[in-house]
């Protein structure tokens, strides 16, 4: 049965009256209708199949909210969109939950990915002129090789505050070194 000749509204009306054959045809046609919609939005076929199952169960649970006086497709797409959003929300929340913070892996980086023009020693004079806290942070991070997290623990600051202070120090140093 191709999509062109499927009358979803008639099939649904028959299904609501307990016609199992019509209900099977309707669900099969719905799978064909929704598959491209889901495939476009999800990366893997397995994901599409999983979500399709959830959508079919939702259609089954919510079938009493449909009546044939209105078109079937907006009703079914509303359910599909709702389940897709739910699925993506859980999926991304899970990925975020398992994500690593950059500070946790920065010790494993073999070397700097950008060339080092100035070493700590060559600009230590300029660093000494910075406010004491910023100078201490740069010393720990660039001379002693501590991470932002370790620096924060040593000087009793929040990691974010250490990063902000370091960023401000870089800005001051950049402005000074550009003038040289």
């Amino acid at each position, binding site marked *: 049965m191709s999509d062109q000749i499927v009358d979803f509204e008639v099939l649904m009306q028959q299904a609501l009256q307990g016609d199992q054959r019509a209900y099977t045809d309707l669900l099969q046609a719905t799978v064909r209708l929704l598959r491209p919609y889901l495939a476009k939005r999800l990366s893997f076929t397995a994901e599409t199949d999983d979500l399709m199952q959830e959508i079919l169960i*939702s259609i089954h649970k*919510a079938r009493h*909210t449909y009546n044939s006086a209105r078109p079937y497709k907006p009703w079914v797409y509303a359910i599909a969109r*709702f389940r897709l959003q739910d699925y993506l929300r859980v999926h991304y929340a899970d990925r975020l939950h398992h994500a690593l913070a950059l500070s946790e892996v920065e010790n494993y980086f073999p070397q700097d990915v950008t060339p080092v023009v100035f070493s700590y020693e060559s600009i230590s004079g300029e660093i000494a002129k910075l406010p004491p806290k910023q100078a201490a942070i740069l010393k720990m991070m660039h001379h002693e090789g501590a991470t932002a997290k370790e620096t924060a623990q040593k000087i009793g600051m929040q990691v974010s505050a250490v990063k902000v202070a370091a960023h401000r120090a870089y800005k001051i140093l950049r402005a000074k070194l550009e003038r040289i």
Partner: protein
Amino acid sequence: MRKLEQLLITLSRDAAIANPAPHPYILSMKWIVTAAIYLAVTLLVFRWRPDLMQKLQDPWFVAEIAALAVIFIATSLSAALLSFPDLHQMRRLALAPALLLALFLPLVFFSWSAANPLAILSTHTYECTLCLALIALLPATWIFFEMRKNASTHSRWAGAMAVLSALSIGALWLRLHEVNDSIGHVIEWHYLPMIGFGIVGAWLGKILLKW
């Protein structure tokens, strides 16, 4: 793919006759009539304000009561529509309360401007908010119970509308019961808390209307 086919077979076998959900107009009408009876009964029990007949001569008071009644009807209808996955394909009608609430703000502002400075000031503060919530509790519970029978895909909005609908009944009851002509008090302790309760309703909707 096999799982999907298996599921299709299982669902088809389970295709018993389904009782269709009532049309949103009928559903909301049921809520409106029941809530109107509830309002009348609570006013009879707790008594309406003694100066009600005199207050009904005040056009701003009448406009406020009428606006609350219209908001109640619109939020009930919106909650009913939002309990359907596709909003019964009447999206604009479902969003109508937003427009009405926007029109209610200038009405309250003009009432404030026209307020009599010698008006009786209320001695109540949070008691009014508490009464509002208590009166709205029963209608809200019932509306949520009825909405759970359907399948909302906009659960937060649906929850907020259900709570606002019930609170409109509470607000109507308060205005018809409490001897109070201070519009400042009405805004501070009646209408502003409704916004807060609306946010709570959105949160409740997310939890209670899950399916």
